């Protein structure tokens, strides 16, 4: 079905990003109004799509298309929204909404540029999830890389720049590999539309199949931060400001997971992966990566870096459980994607609040943080409990389904890694909670040091907004923890749209 509103999901944030520098020239105070306007149009747009196609979302027949410039798929670019991309867009938009409200309270200097880059990220993430065209996907990935790379260096400190350069090193190599893969695909198949490629990919010679698959896989593994390429991740999580880290961990890694699912299941086809004997290798790599992430987290003396390492652990776990290619695996994997998105983003957001007066993110400076901001610290603890999988929270449900998927597939190593992950998580999180409750006495000089060490914070630090967003994340975790069955239908339907590739191909090429 042709639907104009899904292109608006991309061009509204794009237009907002374009207009903000202009507004800055006229009157910088109007900026926030336009930011809120842009995000509310976006939300309204998405809501109207949900309302109109509610029945189709429920019975899994949602399939919206848009042909850009009116060209039919093999010749032009097409946007596709099926249940999978709908689910991802919905949660990503919700998460991005939270983070932008948070950053209204948080970001002090260069606010205009921050919002430009942020709206570019919104546009690019929606675009990357909606597009049905390989080259278009590459463009949006590049957009994400550039915008997030600039945001990592937002603090303009030495470690920030270093992390940004490292991030760009890895991600631009990954981007060029994706470009190379797209090029090879076009060279061999003469088409860029995902559905068309999927239709003809199986007919290729197995050597070329391996060639293309290997390049895409390497690129996506770099982007996700799975084992051999996890080195850029903790550094960039550590040295970027809190809302950016929340975006990086909460949104970007999930978008790459989505793209991984799209490329492997829709475009390349899981049968091809099995025929190339790559699936076992990938599962093992992912589980090893998960293991390493948790082990690294044990030695981290820096809370944000620790959360970065634990992200490696969780993403590896999700990757492995998705690679099982069973319905239970997808169910657990996507549920954990949602859970992890909100938990990690919430944790980074809470960290940004808690670490506002500390000298650094270091363990020893974490002392007494909990006593200073008790309500936020309690939210922080709740989110940590969700990370390790305690029951009334969403983390438990997702851990349950992931474990179930591993055991159902008789992958006992995977189940062991899940258990191991949550056990090590207990050890490394409890240490920080204990430190947070330690009494601390500050001298006058210490206080001065702390205030001067925070150039990012403006004088008008809007504490209430920041606290509110932390609570909002906690509330989401608790509400979905009790009502995770609300997600049952969307999850089932998106699994169906992953598995049913023929329908995708038929609807794109035929409609």
């Amino acid at each position: 079905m042709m639907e104009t509103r899904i292109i608006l999901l991309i061009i509204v944030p794009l237009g907002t990003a374009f207009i903000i520098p202009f507004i800055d020239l006229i009157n910088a105070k109007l900026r926030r109004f336009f930011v809120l306007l842009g995000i509310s149009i976006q939300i309204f747009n998405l809501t109207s799509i949900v309302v109109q196609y509610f029945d189709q979302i429920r019975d899994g027949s949602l399939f919206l298309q848009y042909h850009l410039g009116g060209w039919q798929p093999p010749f032009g670019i097409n946007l596709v929204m099926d249940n999978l991309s709908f689910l991802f867009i919905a949660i990503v938009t919700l998460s991005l909404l939270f983070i932008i409200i948070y950053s209204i309270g948080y970001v002090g200097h260069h606010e205009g540029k921050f919002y430009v880059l942020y709206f570019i990220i919104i546009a690019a993430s929606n675009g990357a999830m909606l597009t049905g065209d390989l080259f278009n996907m590459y463009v949006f990935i590049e957009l994400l890389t550039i915008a997030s790379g600039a945001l990592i260096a937002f603090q303009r400190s030495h470690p920030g720049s270093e992390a940004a350069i490292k991030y760009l090193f890895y991600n631009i190599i990954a981007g060029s590999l994706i470009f190379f893969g797209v090029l090879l695909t076009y060279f061999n198949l003469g088409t860029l539309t995902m559905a068309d490629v999927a239709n003809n990919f199986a007919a290729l010679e197995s050597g070329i199949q391996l060639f293309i698959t290997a390049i895409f896989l390497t690129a996506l593994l770099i982007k996700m931060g799975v084992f051999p390429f996890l080195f850029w991740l903790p550094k960039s999580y550590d040295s970027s400001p809190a809302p950016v880290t929340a975006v990086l961990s909460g949104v970007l890694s999930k978008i790459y997971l989505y793209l991984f699912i799209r490329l492997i299941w829709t475009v390349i086809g899981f049968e091809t992966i099995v025929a190339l004997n790559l699936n076992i290798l990938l599962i093992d790599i992912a589980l090893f990566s998960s293991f390493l992430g948790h082990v690294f987290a044990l030695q981290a003396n820096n809370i944000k870096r620790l959360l970065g390492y634990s992200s490696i652990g969780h993403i590896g776990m999700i990757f492995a459980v998705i690679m099982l290619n069973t319905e239970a695996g997808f169910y657990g994997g996507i549920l954990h994607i949602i859970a992890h998105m909100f938990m990690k983003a919430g944790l980074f957001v809470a960290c940004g609040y808690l670490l506002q007066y500390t000298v650094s993110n270091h363990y020893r400076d974490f002392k007494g943080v909990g006593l200073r901001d008790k309500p936020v610290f309690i939210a922080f603890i709740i989110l940590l409990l969700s990370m390790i999988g305690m029951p009334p929270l969403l983390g438990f449900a997702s851990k349950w389904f992931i474990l179930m998927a591993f055991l159902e597939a008789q992958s006992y190593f995977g189940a062991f890694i899940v258990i191991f992950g949550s056990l090590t998580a207990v050890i490394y999180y409890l240490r920080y909670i204990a430190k947070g409750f330690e009494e601390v006495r500050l001298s006058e000089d210490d206080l001065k040091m702390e205030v001067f060490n925070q150039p990012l914070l403006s004088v008008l630090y809007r504490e209430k907004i920041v606290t509110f967003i932390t609570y909002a994340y906690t509330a989401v975790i608790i509400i979905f923890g009790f009502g995770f069955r609300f997600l049952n239908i969307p999850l089932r339907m998106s699994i169906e749209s992953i598995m049913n590739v023929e329908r995708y191909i038929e609807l794109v090429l035929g409609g």
Partner: protein
Amino acid sequence: MHKYLKKTLVISVFILTAIALYENFLLVPEYTGLRTGVSDYIISSGLSDTGSLNLITAVLYDYRAFDSLGESTVIFGAVSGIVLILSRKMLPVSSRGLSFIVKRTFGLVTPFIALFSLYVITHGHLSPGGGFQGGVILAVISIIFSIVYGSAFDYRRYSPQVKTAMETMGAFTFLGLGVVGILMEGFFLKNLGFLTARTGTLISAGSIPYVNFGVGIKVGAGLAIIFYSMIQKTFKEDF
């Protein structure tokens, strides 16, 4: 790690990768044996579809105009990022430019460079070139200004505010043409039929020349901003 050991390791890994890539490239079929469905279609009916003589421009700004929008947004984002990271308060008057002869000669040449860039931009659908290339040439003018006349010259003539406004305007031209496409023709970035004249003339090929123009301004202004934010002076206390 020992220095030579590391060197050996690096070299051996590169040799391994080269072998692996070579092995795989051997499998790729010859150029003549490819499936060329889409490109054949574009070559045969690109002109009649879009009215652009230059098929590359037809692909860039019509068939895959959305990609071009994305690419120009990449530059937009890069400009924002670089300005964000490198933005400083003052422009150094590091040099007073080159000698009088160079200044005067360049003064004579500048209009021609500008004209050339305008030509490249506006004839994008007729001859090689297009908004992107022309925009870069436009930016080069600004760079040469700073080399020849000293870095403050260009700053005084065209302040960063003007450049930002130009960049935003270019971006909005592109986006606006896309939205007009929705309103008039029903699809985002659809070529505007009512603007098309006889093929081969300057004002033909629907909205392509206008898109070219927007991209040209945007790219030119954006790259100039990047260059100027790089030569600005650093202050320690600004960090």
